[in-house]
């Protein structure tokens, strides 16, 4: 960076030199040579489900739950909508791999190779600088989690979900699988059968933290399945800000990430859940994320989808308490060979609830990006309101986009507004920028950055910088 941007230069060359150089490779595609201390091998049988449960020393009810979910999984079909999943080979997948024997609370104790991976991903540094707590999952298990003392003292519980089952069995059982049942969809059933790792957060009544808690999910081995299970409980009047990131190495064969996330936002509580998904282009990301917002509670999903081969993800908010609020702010970028099928679901179940969905999508180099969403006002949703906005830019003639919103209204005393636009990059804007000496690729990038700004400005600063960098990287070569 130079100070050129503060000068009123005659032409914009100096200004241009301040824009960071663009990488032309996926930065996180490296892999480590780590031999897992335990693996169930390829494929999935009922015995493997039992082995996973035994390895984790789980109570009988959890084993029973897993076995029941496994049976449901076996008879459930693929979703009857969205991307083609026929190339996903579920029999060749590694369902459970443990990379370390224990979980660590100090980075110095984490085995060297794994520590290096997370260092390359910037996880320990981020933790030092701006996080209240941080966790890291490698393959099937959390290898690290820690929270700063000041937050621990407030009574916040932050740990991996397996440990929570052992240490807080009562809270766990009260909430676990009550929002997302194994029968919800095929991949929720699969997750319920083989779940491992994930984040457990419990925020006691009245405790508020603005500083984010982060989990980082890393797949390392080829043909891996990662099935984390996240459970967040925000008690009345409390607030939490949770951030997750995901990356994986580049392989020629496919991996699967099928998470289940359940968030409970009790009366007057607040939760923001931010995801920056940047899987390598061999990962199927088939997620089930659901939140329940009670009386006057607020649930906010902030969802960035930059990577993966195929994503199917429609985070939902069940607005179950009077005056509850749900929002979704999302971006999706689909490049060559990528199918991003994203959206949101807002289910208005109580009086005077409100929801907002803002979705920004970009398709380029033959990518497909779809918005698929539902807003539903139930009988008892008097006085509720919903706003939906979907904007898409299709960058070139090889790419495509579908916008499929369903708005179902079962109450006459509500209102809903929905708007969507699909277009190419505005020629007027391009012309304006290029007439001022900015080359086409840079002008295109600037327009895209403006397009996604409503999203990036909601991110913590470090994430915003990272996201802008990733989008710049995605835009490389999209012109000319």
């Amino acid at each position, binding site marked *: 960076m130079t100070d050129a941007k503060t000068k009123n230069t005659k032409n914009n060359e100096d200004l241009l030199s301040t824009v960071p150089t663009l990488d032309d490779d996926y930065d996180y595609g490296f892999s480590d040579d780590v031999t897992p201390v335990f693996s169930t091998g390829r494929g999935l049988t009922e015995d493997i489900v039992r082995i996973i449960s035994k390895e984790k020393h789980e109570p009988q009810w959890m084993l029973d739950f897993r076995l029941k979910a496994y049976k449901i999984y076996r008879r459930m079909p693929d979703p009857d909508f969205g991307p083609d999943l026929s190339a996903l080979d579920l029999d060749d997948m590694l369902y459970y791999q443990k990379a370390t024997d224990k979980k660590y609370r100090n980075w110095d104790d984490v085995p060297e190779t794994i520590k290096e991976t997370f260092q390359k991903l910037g996880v320990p540094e981020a933790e030092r600088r701006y996080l209240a707590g941080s966790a890291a999952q490698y393959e099937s298990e959390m290898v690290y989690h820690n929270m700063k003392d000041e937050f621990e003292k407030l009574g916040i519980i932050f740990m991996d979900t397996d440990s929570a089952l052992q240490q807080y069995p009562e809270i766990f059982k009260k909430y676990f699988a009550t929002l997302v049942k194994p029968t919800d969809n095929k991949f929720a059933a699969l997750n319920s059968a083989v779940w491992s790792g994930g984040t457990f957060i419990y925020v006691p009544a009245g405790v508020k933290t603005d500083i984010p808690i982060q989990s980082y999910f890393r797949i390392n081995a080829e043909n891996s399945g990662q099935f984390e299970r996240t459970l967040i409980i925000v008690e009345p009047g409390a607030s939490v800000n949770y951030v997750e990131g995901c990356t994986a190495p580049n392989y020629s064969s496919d991996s699967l990430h099928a998470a289940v996330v359940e968030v409970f936002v009790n009366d007057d509580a607040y939760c923001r859940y931010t995801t920056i998904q940047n899987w390598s282009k061999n990962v199927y990301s088939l997620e089930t994320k659901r939140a329940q917002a009670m009386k006057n509670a607020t649930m906010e999903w902030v969802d960035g989808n930059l990577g993966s081969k195929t994503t199917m993800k429609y985070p939902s908010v069940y607005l179950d308490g009077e005056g509850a609020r749900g929002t979704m702010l999302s971006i999706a970028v689909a490049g060559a060979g990528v199918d991003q099928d994203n959206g949101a679901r807002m289910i208005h179940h109580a009086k005077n609830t409100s929801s907002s969905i803002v979705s920004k999508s970009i398709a380029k180099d033959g990518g497909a990006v779809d918005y698929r969403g539902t807003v539903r006002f139930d009988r008892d949703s008097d006085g509720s309101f919903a706003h939906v906005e979907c904007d898409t830019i299709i960058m070139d003639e090889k790419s495509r986009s579908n*916008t499929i919103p369903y708005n179902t209204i079962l109450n*006459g005393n509500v209102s809903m507004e*929905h708007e969507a636009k699909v277009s190419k990059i505005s020629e007027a804007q391009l012309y304006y920028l290029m007439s001022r000496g900015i080359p086409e690729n840079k002008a295109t990038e600037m327009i895209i950055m403006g397009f996604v700004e409503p999203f990036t400005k909601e991110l913590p600063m470090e994430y915003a910088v990272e996201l802008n960098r990733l989008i710049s990287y995605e835009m490389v070569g999209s012109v000319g």
Partner: protein
Amino acid sequence: MAAFGPKQLDPAAIAAAYGPLDADPWLTTQRQAAAAAYADAPWPEFAKVTFHPWKLFGDGTAAGVTYPEGAPAAPAGVTIQPLLTAPAAVLAPFKPYLFHQTAPTDRLTAYHLAHLNSGFLIRVPDHFHSDQPLVLNTQLLAGVNAHRHLLLLVGRDAQITVVDHFTGEAGADSADSIVTEIVVGEDSRVDFANVDAFGANITAFVRRQAQVAANGILNWTAGVLNDGNIIADTSTNLVGTGSTADVKVVALATGKQVQGLNTRVTNIGRQTTANILQHGVILENATLVFNGIGHIVKGARGADAQQENRVLMLSRTAHGDANPILLIDENDVKAGHAASVGRVDASQMYYLMSRGLTKELAQRLVIRGFLGAVLTAIPLPAIQQQLIDTIERKLIHGQRIAHQQS
């Protein structure tokens, strides 16, 4: 006949029963082909409408329709022929088009084609221009299943207005299918209005499919005011470069009925323009589903697809769906949609009531304003007035019910 329809249709039995209706044996072979396709054909798609258990199937060789104002007459120059009694020589020029847009690729269309029992062929020659509208007034009979097919073939550089108006006879139930094909030739302009007011005793599958050649214009107005359960698909293919479709739909749902409407425009040619505007009002326990579908296929460079879906809910127990869907496979396009669902505007109500109008009258005026954008596009003042009267009658009835409930 039972819900879900027969498992299969026997082509030989269809030919034996319906063949005698056909002047040209070619028609009978078309029926047989449709009967053969029926068993494997999927249901047509109407998102968010569970129509499969409805009584959509019913056979019979009787026409199922009457013409209260006599057989339809065409303006000089335009020919109108009954479909079934047309001899081979008359049918010949229509054959390249007849059943082409409505091939038996879904179960209900296949059933319709096998059981055709009335219909018309209309031909508008090249360079025909007239302000005199062609009006088809058709009444669907009670207790007789109507399977009515219409082909409107408009040549090049022609201009015509067609009003296809349906009413229903009260009485016994019937299961009807109304399928229409419209072909708009190059540089032609067609103003097509259909006003469907089928009675509560009629369950119907309605499909109207149009294609527009280069620089053709199709202005389509649809009034959907049925009292029974219906699914209706209104689709236009903008095939030719520079062709335009402007589709306006007004719908009113009352009682316990379900009306599921697909309104689709597919941009295929370059520089094609599609506009969909749908306004609907729902009263009592009725369900109204608007599926607006704007599809721009690959290669339709410079295409523009816009749609607007608005629904007014007048009762707490009404059920509305406004699903504006965009399917875009091309980047050099402009596409947009908007949808809204809500109550009658409170400030408009306040304004009218502060001028001394009763709540009921104020509500009806606001609703008439809401539907006005579509109503004023109905080309024939008499039909327009009839539509307004029907809406008024339904609104007053709905308000009375609401009043009794409260």
